[in-house]
């Protein structure tokens, strides 16, 4: 059995779960300047308060898992992305503490400061994650078993573009989440925001895809080579179909069954899923593009097997009780019922 292959799939899943789950709660923070009423702000923070900690745990699994099963990738990527990783961590520190602090600020000044912290922390974390993604995709220089580049290599027009793209994408997820969890005027506002961010996200998906073709010849072969060209083109096609459905759902009347309000969020998740799949197709089978494959980066087989034995039992369990926690807090969140 190819343990590296199984682990690559599992970690890819963990990272994807992180991206969409922390994506929407970071997105809620990103939207702060657009949602202006103090009451509304409390409300949207309350929609994510019970779940954000669990969402962020997937990031820890991403890091810890990479260390455990593809240590070489971990040992190369982290120094290569030193600055964006550290800034992202600091931004998450800021944001995590702002969560609690903004509710308890006793002065107008304090409240304003922690609101800014919450917005800035969310936005910078998203930006850094996007930059990390871009820097990863454009390739990392490796010699022997170590990173061989400088400490600014991660910065390029491409990585900045992916950074901004992810901010827009998380904003979209956040807006769709708000559409789902709130009602009335706030919901209308979120619908408008989601539409704008939807166009932006779509534009960025296109721009990043095009830019990638110029980044490496291998990517061109991946997408246009015969015979897989016949299959892989389903991905962009589905993107367009889903986007259309999302925009329709966003402008539909409000009085449908409950899942109607969840539909934009589901479509946005789909868009993320497809983009992620597209990236996967481009990068496969590299753990550190363009030179280290998942097999090069693999931990000793005994380590991969030992952790896998637990993971096959624990991951379904985790998904189960995570779903339960979401279920407990299901439904619309209303003003004055802050369960924060």
């Amino acid at each position, binding site marked *: 059995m190819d343990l590296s292959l199984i682990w690559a799939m599992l970690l890819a899943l963990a990272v994807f779960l992180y991206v969409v789950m922390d994506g929407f709660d970071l997105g809620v923070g990103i939207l702060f300047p657009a949602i202006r009423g103090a009451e509304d702000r409390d409300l949207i923070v309350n929609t994510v308060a019970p779940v954000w900690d669990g969402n962020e745990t997937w990031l820890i699994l991403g*890091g810890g898992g990479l260390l455990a099963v593809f240590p070489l990738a971990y040992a190369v990527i*982290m120094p290569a992305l030193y600055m964006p990783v550290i800034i992202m961590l600091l931004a998450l520190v800021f944001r995590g503490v702002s969560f609690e602090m903004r509710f*308890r600020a*006793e002065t107008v000044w304090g409240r304003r400061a922690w609101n800014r912290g919450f917005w800035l922390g969310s936005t910078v974390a998203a930006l850094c994650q996007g930059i990390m993604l871009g820097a990863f995709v454009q390739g990392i220089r490796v010699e022997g*078993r*170590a990173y061989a580049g400088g400490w600014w290599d991660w910065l390029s027009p491409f990585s900045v573009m992916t950074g901004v793209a992810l901010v827009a994408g998380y904003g979209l997820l956040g807006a769709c989440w708000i559409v789902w969890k709130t009602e009335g005027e706030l919901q209308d506002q979120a619908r408008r925001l989601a539409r704008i961010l939807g166009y932006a996200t779509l534009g960025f998906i296109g721009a990043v895809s095009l830019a990638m073709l110029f980044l490496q010849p291998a990517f061109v072969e991946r997408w246009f080579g015969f015979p897989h060209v016949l299959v892989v083109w389903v991905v962009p096609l589905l993107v367009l179909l889903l986007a259309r459905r999302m925009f329709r759902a966003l402008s539909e009347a409000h009085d449908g069954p409950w899942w109607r309000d969840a539909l934009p969020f589901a479509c946005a998740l789909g868009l993320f899923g497809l983009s992620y799949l597209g990236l996967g197709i481009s990068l496969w089978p590299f753990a550190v593009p363009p030179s280290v494959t998942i097999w090069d980066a693999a931990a000793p087989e005994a380590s991969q097997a030992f952790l896998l034995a637990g993971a096959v039992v624990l991951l379904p369990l985790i998904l189960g009780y995570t779903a339960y926690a979401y279920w407990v807090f299901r439904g619309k969140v209303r003003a004055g019922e*802050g369960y924060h």
Partner: protein
Amino acid sequence: MMDALPSALDLARFQFAFTVVWHFLFPAFTIGLASYLAVLEGLWLVTKRDVFLDLFRWWLRVFAVAFAMGVVSGLVMSYQFGTNWSVFADRTAGTLGPLLGYEVLTAFFLEAGFLGVMLFGMGRVGKGLHFLATGCVAFGTLLSAFWILSANSWMHTPAGYALSPDGRFLPEDWWAIIFNPSFPYRLVHTVIAAYLTTALIVGAVGAFHLIRSAGANAQARVMFSMAMWMLLVVAPLQVVAGDFHGLNTKEHQPAKVAAMEGHWVERRSHAPLVLFAWPDQQAEENRYEVAIPGLGSLILGHSWDAEIEGLRAFPPGERPTNVPLVFWSFRVMVGLGLLMVVLGLWGLLARLRGRLYEPGWLHRFAVGMGGSGLVAVTAGWIVTEAGRQPYTVYGMLRTADSVSPIAAPAVAASLAAFAVVYFLVFGAGIWLLFRLFAQPPHADQEGPRPDTPIRSAGITPAPSLRDRGIRDLPAGE
């Protein structure tokens, strides 16, 4: 280290020490607090006495803040192995990686998954289920301690591995890796430390409100009494556990123990117990030494004739790099530990005399000792980790060979950023904790209840916010 500019290695070490000490302040408190909350809720369910529910809710608000800071500072730690210690990560991932992986899978998800229900779920789920959620969070914190301490202990007493030709540690025997020789001692000593830390804080808060209410506050009475029982039992246990821990360390890391004890020359028997001194690393001897003859052998060897190794027996490259730091941190920890025993006994005395709730010197002492657990824990870790130097994996992998290929300016910049953000953010968080401590607990304590109209949506229903007109903030604030 005479040169003016610190090297990338020094900076990375300092950064790790800075961030991990900050991190550990929070779990040291929340591990104990989570268990305390579970006990309070359990007592409430069994006895149906409202005072336990009041206390549960009061401490739950504290827990929410402290836990959040623990989580975000911990997130930083899990990435630092890669950003600053990438060679260490590459070499040791085979053995340490799965341990950290299991910590995430068994502990962190459990805590995070049930935290939301624990904090906000009363009224949304039944009492039994809510208690289960609290129990899961408490159990999760202990599991977390289990795995991370196993990983840390392996770095002190590596076992169960083989070395690959390129210097990586390959796992051979998982049982031996997890239950490596120093792990049981470290786990017991650290978990007790966490319980002590919490008991001291709970006791200090209880004493504070007893003083302020002239002994009338019913919730503060229960708090204080519970904390004093806990201290009475656990503080002496900690001294015993520490003693065994030291014996075990003497077996596996004699140079560390020699530094802790301030011994430079070998003693065949009747080694003195050095109380105070300034260990001079250049001259390889102690200055200003105050020592009790013979007692050292008795404590470390449990016999007057026990033999004790001295630092001079180790080549300079094998000794802890900062002997005074190890030496003095050890004294801080042990000194505070003994004071905790005193506090526990004093509490018992007051209780027997029926004066436990009459504000007096005992209560002032308890307030003063509130932070001593955190200080002792930090001092203990400095003993442990600075005493492990110059190795990351004791005897096998040197700290100098573990560090990432990152330029010094980059590490300096990140260290400065950590310092600024941590002091700012955690400083504010700790200030908030103090404000929560200062609010007197009372009957019908409000908690995170969804059925009450909590307008500000904080766990605190913060009428103060409304009073100050924050509700009517202009748009955009």
